[in-house]
């Protein structure tokens, strides 16, 4: 009885509370309201700012890239002694988590690295949380500095419906290309040749496995690393143009096409046969490449960013190559630019932030990145080192960007695609999802999004 009375009174109190509280978000700004200064309003005079602290969040925690950023910050502070850079770097996953929460608040950084994907940059643009950099771009001449194809990956319309065109929201600093790492000694021990076609590569995987080696190295507990294996593999079965549509979330392609199912089937076969080891889904991404440097596996399909760290251990034995030519006869692989640097709409020091972004994407910066062992997004041909794994990485990047296609990361596609693709590919590799069902799941996400926009 007493409880009933208590519940009754509690619900009465609850009703009052509901009446008193306003609907969520009613005081928030209209979406799509983000703006930036026009070119003639842009203030470039950093020295006149007085003492400022520039807060920068990035995810460049890996050896070479971290060294490059540290060096760049040092010379930036020399150039502008009145600016102190307060840098916070953390892993890709942690930065994504944090950004999603922090960007809507008031305590935002001045410079922020944001994933190009619709789930990230797209959503932030839609919510009006980033600064439109078009004016800065004109004032600083970024459009002369960067090829249009590179900038396109940081362009969204203000309502974020169109990806690849519209205003500029960020500027990348590094280039990225997904390719194949191998150990020369390992191949020799297997008396195998470097594969020049996908068929040879698939045969090599079987041969290595027959010889008792783990052919492919993958740590996929995070879910997204499998996308970097699937991306290049997909190009063996699906025309590059179609993959671009799928990846950018533009209408006109279909995940349930025969080619896509073949690609998913190959992933499933590799998963089932143990080509990725006993348990790729239980392995950390970083633990996997560390294991590769310690002698596990023959091939590692992964991003150029891993090269310098792995080379430190493996030395000259480590090699990198672009994947073999895709089905349309030209090489096509996942890649493009590193995460672009943006300025949050509520940034307190936009003037210094723009100068920082300008500085870390300048010619001198590109040289510094190369010097520290990273791969700049610009001037790769001129800055290519003479030897080592980076020489091969630069060559591969150059070859793919000039005569092939740099495919978008597949998680760009829709606001939920990173999640969907990660779950689905984990299922395919683990054998819980058959290729046809996986294709349906991917198509459901992509199809729903393209139909709505």
């Amino acid at each position, binding site marked *: *009885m*007493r*409880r009933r009375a208590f519940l009754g009174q509690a619900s009465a109190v*609850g009703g009052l*509370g*509901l009446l008193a*509280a306003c*609907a*969520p*978000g*009613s005081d*928030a*700004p*209209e*979406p799509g309201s983000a703006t930036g200064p026009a070119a003639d309003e842009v203030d470039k005079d950093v020295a006149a700012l007085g003492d400022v602290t520039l807060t920068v969040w990035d995810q460049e925690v890996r050896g070479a890239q971290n060294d490059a950023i540290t060096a760049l910050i040092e010379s930036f502070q020399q150039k502008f002694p009145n600016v102190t850079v307060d840098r916070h770097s953390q892993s890709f996953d942690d930065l994504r*988590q944090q950004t*999603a*929460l922090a960007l*809507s608040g008031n305590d935002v950084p001045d410079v922020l690295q944001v994933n190009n994907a619709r789930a990230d940059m797209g*959503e932030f643009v839609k*919510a*009006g*949380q980033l600064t439109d950099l078009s004016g800065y771009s004109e004032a600083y001449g970024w459009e002369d500095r960067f090829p249009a194809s590179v900038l396109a990956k940081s362009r969204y319309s203000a309502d974020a419906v169109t990806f690849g065109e519209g205003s500029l929201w960020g500027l990348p600093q590094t280039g990225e290309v997904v390719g194949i790492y191998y150990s020369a000694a390992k191949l020799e021990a297997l008396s195998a040749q470097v594969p020049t076609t996908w068929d040879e590569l698939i045969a090599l995987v079987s041969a290595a496995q027959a010889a008792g080696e783990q052919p492919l190295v993958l740590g*996929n*507990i*995070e*879910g997204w690393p499998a996308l970097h294996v699937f991306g290049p593999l997909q190009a063996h079965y699906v025309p590059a143009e179609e993959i671009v549509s799928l990846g950018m979330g533009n209408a006109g392609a279909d995940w349930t096409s025969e080619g896509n199912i073949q690609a998913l089937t190959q992933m499933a076969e590799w998963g089932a046969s143990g080509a990725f*080891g*006993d*348990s*790729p*889904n*239980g*392995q*950390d991404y970083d*633990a996997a490449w560390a*294991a590769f440097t310690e002698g596990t596996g023959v091939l590692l399909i992964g991003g150029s960013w891993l090269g310098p760290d792995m080379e430190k251990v493996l030395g000259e034995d480590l090699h990198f190559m672009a994947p073999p030519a895709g089905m349309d006869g030209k090489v096509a692989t996942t890649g493009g630019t590193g995460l672009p640097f943006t300025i949050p709409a509520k940034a307190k020091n936009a003037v210094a932030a723009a100068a920082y972004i300008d500085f870390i994407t300048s010619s001198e910066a590109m040289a510094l990145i190369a010097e520290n062992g990273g791969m700049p997004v610009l001037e790769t041909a001129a800055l290519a080192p003479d030897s080592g794994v980076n020489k091969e990485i630069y060559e591969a990047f150059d070859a793919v960007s000039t005569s092939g296609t740099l495919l978008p990361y597949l998680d760009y596609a829709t*606001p*939920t695609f990173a*999640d969907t693709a*990660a*779950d*689905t590919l*984990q*299922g395919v590799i*683990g054998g*819980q*999802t058959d290729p046809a069902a996986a294709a349906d799941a991917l198509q459901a996400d992509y199809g729903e999004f393209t139909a709505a926009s």
Partner: protein
Amino acid sequence: MPTSSSPAAAPADRAPARAATGAGGPAQPASGAPRRRRRRPSPVARTAATPYLFLLPAFAVYAAFSLYPLLRAAQFSLYDWSGFGPSTFVGLSNYLDLAGDAAFRAAIGHALVLIVFYAVLPLIVGLVLAAILRRGQVRAMGIFRTVIFLPQVIALVVIAVAWRQIYAPSGPLNQALRALGLDSLARGWLGDPGAALPAVGFIGTWLEMGLVMLLLLAGMSRIPNDLYEAVRLDGAGPVREFLAITLPSVRGEIVVALVLTIIAALKTFDLVYLTTSGGPGRATTVPSYEVYRRAFELKDVGSASAVAIVLTLLVFVINLLVTRIGERPA
């Protein structure tokens, strides 16, 4: 209770038990209540306002940061909102969507599996350990008690780091299995859809057994020794003694332990977030993780709030059930 694994939520949750059965009546001062002199609140409190003055600060903070947000969550669950910009009132459709949402149903199923690992297994282990300690003649009893309780004291982040390394494909667990020739059992525990959920659950068993043991020990230490002497004179062995004396005497503590560990099982956010992020696929997602994922990753605050409300109701209902069953006369 800030942390799901909080040991000493223990005594606390005897309280919900009593509240739920309607015993939370006006607080009578303990035995020998003071004479009613001019209906004062207490011998030292002179005015009727005094109790409220002492209560007010605590109640204000508690209401503002616990009760009110819960009501707000209920309100949010009726809206379609991405976390910024305007929202749309959608009535109960977030809840209706949950009914057809495979990820959510899976999360509820996983939570029920976790209850086995967090509540049932620790209860069995805890009963055995407490009974052994109670039967006496265990030297260094304090050391065993402290050591087995120790996992409760350690931050879940630390526990996640430790177990993630233990479960890694080339980690200590697999090394041990291979050394024993059990290669077929070795696997990447957190990446195998069949093994990941039990693997996370097992951490819970490890974590909660010390708490359950301590609670039961508190109950058992109140059983008078003569009871045991009596059944032993009848020639009862340890098993019969346990069933006849020990078990019936700690029914109350069992209820408390179950309530606590079940709540902990339903609130396994930290461990899932830090070990598997709900993967592989959605094999280890639980309601508390879905709340976070929907709100801050998928940016569907309405749906997240609906999950939060369902989770809260689940906690209430299971609490009520356990205490009801536990307090039914034998």
